Structures are given as C-alpha cells and as structure tokens.
C-alpha cells in the first residue's frame, strides 16, 4: 500500500520506528498534490521546500531520541484561516491576498511542536462563510467523488485534500457546520469539538461565540489523535475551557455502543431531505441497534428555529469582527491617492476586497444589531439560543447521544445554489444546533445515496465536553460499516 493511502496512525508509527522518514512521507503527499490538485484545487498555497524542511527537522528530532507524540512526521493541511508564520494566510479573501501573519495560531503552533508537517493551506469560503467553498475569492474546490460537485464548505479545501489522499489529516473550523457538512459530502470523518475545547487564538474570527477548530481524517481514530494533539486549555483564548481534554483517543479505540442510549431527533427528516440520505440514516440507526444500543425518538422542538437564529447571530458577530479589515494596518488598501479620507479608503477597500456573501452577512448583521431592530432580531435569536440549549439538556437526560443525518442532501452541483443564499443556508440545517449550544458533534460516513452514488454522513451529537462519546459511537459505526462494505467508504470513490 502506498504511503498516501495509509492512516495517520500508521504513518506516525512508521516514522517513529524509523521504517520510513518524515521526508519520504511528505514527498509522497507533495507528489500526490502535484498529480491531482490541478483538478481538485484543495490548496491555496503549497510550499514543498518549507514542508520538506519541516520534515527534515522532525527526522532529526526523532534521530536524537526526542519523544514527539503519535503524529510526528505525519503531514497535515491547514484551512487557510489559521495563521501560519511561515506561509501566507488569506481566509479565502482578496482583502488578505499575500498577507503573511507574524505569528502562529495556537492550533498550528501546537501541531508544529508535535512534529506534524504542514503541506500547505487549504481553500475555503471567504472568511468561512458558506457551505460550498464557491465563495472563495480564489475559485471553487471540487469534490473528489465528482469534480462537478461542491466539496462542502466552508472547510471544503480541507475535506477535499483528505478525501483525495493529498493529506492524511487536515484542520477546519466549524461555525454552523463547516467541518461536519464537508466531511459528510466527501465521505470522510469531521469533528466539531465542544466550543472552547480547541483554541481560537490565531484563528481569523467569523462569529466568535460559535467558531470551533476541529479535525478532518479518513477514519475516526485519526481524527481523535489530531483533536487530542491540538486541544487543551490556552490562556491566550479567554473562552478556552480550563478542564482536561475528554478521552477521545481511548473512546475511538473502545468503539463499543452496547447499552448506550441513542436518540433520533424527531425534527430532522421529512420534507427537504433527499430520500437516499434518509435511507442511509435509517440503516445506520438499525446498525446501532444491532450493535446493542437502545434507540429512542427524542423531540427537540426549538431545533426548527436554529437556522433563522443562527443567521441572525452569526452575521451580527461577523459584522463586528470584520470591522478590523479597515485598510490601515494590514491587508488590501484601495483608492489611497492622497485626496481621499481614511473613511473613504476604508469603504472602497472593503467593497473591493470582500466578496458578495461577506458583504451580505456584514449588512445583515448590521441590520439585526441596529437600534429599533435589535430586540426583534438579535435579542430574540439569543433567547432562541437559550431554548436550543435547553432542548439539548432535556434530550441528554434521556439519551447518551443524539443522531441525525449530517446534511439534508448529498453534494450538489457547483453553481446550483451559488446565487441563492437561502437555499445554500439549508445545507447547515442539522449541524447548526450544536454550534448554538456549544456541544460536541461528529460526522462519520454511513454509505452512498441510491439516487446519485454520493456519500452520506451520520451526525452524532454529544453533550458539552462529551466529545469522547462522539468518537466512541463513531468508531463503532465505522467498524461495523467497514466490515459490511469490505473496507472504508472512500475506497468506492472513483480514481482521480
């Protein structure tokens, strides 16, 4: 089996034992990127020299006998919204074209320290706003299963890189589903940790009360290893949780659901859901039952209002966060001809540097926060947020985890929803409640829809700091499905 098809855990073992060098592993992935990324366009930036230099340093550290952790020498791709001191960071926006951050994000810095090798930065919807990666100022990423379809979003470059074997691991951020939805539609694993479990320091902010860094991998254990490697309290992020990281790796190895209580969210399903998605979801629930779990139907009556509440809260926070792009200290500056005021230059720069979705959300947020509208929109959305948390609390009194389809449909064709914001927003219908409540949720592959042969994801939601439950159930589902399918779902993807 070639190096690019191995799991991250295997690659880490091979490098640690000296059977393979980190340089060889890195080179194999750089070769794969050179071979397929012209078509997939997962990456905005690849620097072979920087990557190989990092790999050489890892090999030297291992040769000196340093103990670096289970992922040392394993390559990774970072969503281009995490700052990296040795690579540009654009957030998929023209306003940050060629910007080189002067510091590393906590996530990138910790993974560097653990010996992971950064291959490059992946494409995304501009400032992580979108569900298809079509909102990138640098062109769309394509789904490796079907190059005419979207890879999900906003972390679509990261999902495509992992599903196209360009990287065994990648990072993403999940504000309304931006890790779980891309993982679902590309047939891989994507996890949104508990809010505050992973540091936002050095993550370019979209909606600060929702943004959550998390892992992508081709299997549940690899995702757990990656989450464990970058998680833990960070004094530089005031919303970082100062508590032990849930035992995610042990849970992924446990892979046992016997006796667990699993709740099917009654509100997710029916109209607007693709039949093939629902068929695979019901199959996954039956599978869990056959593995000894007890299945209940659970009602979460406010979940139906999560989407409208989210599209008030997230744009409100974004309109405030993106005020920092003012053309004064870094990034693009347009129209500074000596005659215009700072304010005029600011407005010209922002009009030129932001794409349509970012402009829409800034204005929507500005509207929702305006005096006269604040109580009816932003204030009411915050109350709905409280009720959604209460729905989760009540549900988790009855069951250990909740399950649903990750997305209502499989990957849609590029262009289909590009100028219809409301239909695009529906892609996050099932994922948004966990962002509003801050709890943990994962997407694992559960088969291919009959209509189009495209991947379907099973979402597993656990309480705040119950991340290990997501991994435990996810690993059990993965193990059972893989023995049924004779291997991972991704093995069914057409060759690139």
């Amino acid at each position, binding site marked *: 089996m070639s190096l690019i098809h191995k799991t991250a855990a295997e690659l880490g073992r091979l490098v640690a034992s000296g059977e393979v060098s980190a340089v060889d592993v890195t080179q194999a992935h750089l070769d794969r990127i050179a071979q397929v990324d012209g078509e997939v366009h997962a990456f905005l930036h690849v620097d072979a020299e920087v990557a190989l230099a990092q790999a050489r340093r890892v090999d030297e550290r291992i040769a000196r006998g340093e103990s670096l952790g289970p992922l040392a020498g394993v390559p990774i791709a970072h969503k281009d919204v995490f700052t990296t001191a040795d690579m540009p960071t654009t957030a998929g926006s023209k306003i940050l074209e060629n910007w080189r951050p002067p510091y590393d994000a906590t996530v990138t810095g910790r993974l560097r320290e653990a010996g992971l090798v950064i291959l490059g930065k992946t494409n995304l919807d501009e400032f992580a706003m979108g569900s298809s990666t079509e909102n990138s100022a640098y062109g769309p990423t394509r789904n490796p299963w079907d190059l005419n379809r979207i890879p999900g979003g906003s972390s679509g470059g990261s999902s495509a890189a992992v599903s196209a074997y360009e990287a065994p691991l990648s990072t993403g951020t999940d504000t309304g589903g931006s890790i779980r939805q891309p993982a679902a539609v590309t047939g891989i694993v994507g996890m949104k940790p508990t809010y*505050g479990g992973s540091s936002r320091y050095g993550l370019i902010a979209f909606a600060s009360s929702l943004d959550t860094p998390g892992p992508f991998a081709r299997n549940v254990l690899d995702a757990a290893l990656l989450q464990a490697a970058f998680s833990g309290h960070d004094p530089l992020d*005031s919303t970082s949780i100062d508590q032990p990281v849930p035992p995610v790796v042990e849970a992924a190895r446990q892979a046992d659901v016997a006796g667990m209580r699993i709740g099917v969210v009654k509100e997710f399903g029916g109209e607007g859901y693709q039949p093939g998605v629902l068929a695979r979801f019901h199959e996954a629930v039956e599978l869990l039952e056959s593995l000894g779990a007890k299945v209940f139907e659970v009602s979460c009556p406010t979940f139906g209002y999560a989407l409208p509440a989210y*599209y008030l809260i997230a744009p409100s926070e974004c309109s405030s966060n993106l005020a920092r792009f003012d053309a004064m200290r870094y990034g693009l500056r347009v129209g500074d001809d000596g005659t215009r005021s700072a304010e005029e230059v600011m*407005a010209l720069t922002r009009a030129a540097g932001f794409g349509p979705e970012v402009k*829409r959300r800034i204005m929507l947020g500005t509207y929702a926060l305006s005096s006269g509208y604040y109580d009816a929109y932003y204030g009411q959305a915050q109350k709905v947020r409280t009720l959604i948390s209460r729905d989760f609390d009540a549900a988790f009194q009855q069951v250990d985890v909740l399950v649903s389809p990750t997305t209502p449909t499989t990957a849609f064709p590029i262009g289909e929803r590009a100028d219809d914001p409301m239909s695009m927003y529906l892609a996050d219908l099932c994922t948004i409640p966990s962002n509003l409540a801050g709890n943990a949720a994962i997407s694992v592959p559960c088969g291919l829809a009959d209509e189009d042969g495209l991947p379907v994801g099973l979402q597993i939601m656990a309480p705040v700091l119950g991340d290990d439950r997501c991994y435990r159930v996810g690993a059990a589902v993965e193990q059972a499905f893989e023995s049924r399918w004779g291997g991972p779902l991704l093995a069914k993807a057409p060759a690139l």
Partner: protein
Amino acid sequence: MSAITRDEVAHLARLSRLALADDELDHFAAQLDQIVGAVARVSEVAADDIPPSSHALPLTNVFRPDELRPSLTPQEALSGAPAVEEDRFRVPRILGEEA
C-alpha cells in the same frame, strides 16, 4: 411589502463602510429582503421570559496572570502594513477638512 428597501441597503452599506455600486444595491436589496423575511421566523417562538444567551459557556471575567511575555517587534507589527512611515502605520487623512 418588502422589509428591506434599496435605500435601506444604501444606509446599511454606509454603516458597514462598504462603497457599493448601484447594481450591487439592487441585487442585495432583493436578497436581504428574502433573508430577513426568513430569519424573522424567530419571532414565532414564545420567549418573553427566557434569558438570552450570548454564548454557549457560562464564563464571566476570565483573567490570566498579568505577566510580561514576548510581543511583536515594530518590524513584525508593521510587516503587513499597506504604508509605513517612521516605524508607524501611515494612514490617509482622518479629518474632514484640511487643518
């Protein structure tokens, strides 16, 4: 009746410091009107006595030790600046009239 008119979008664009073109105003007016119409559904939820949540975690007044730690050098801080003069950010005039 539309909730968001073209004039309203022009006002929002001014508040947001976005110098939008005329055709953008028309385009965004229609879209924002549709979006606001959809998100207004939050008002259907009876929530008068429900406290708002700005955040998912019950955190207040998070402090870290007040200790000196390394920060950016002036060169690093200025490394991405569009214009620099005498180790400072050079910006367009900020007052409406010449002094």
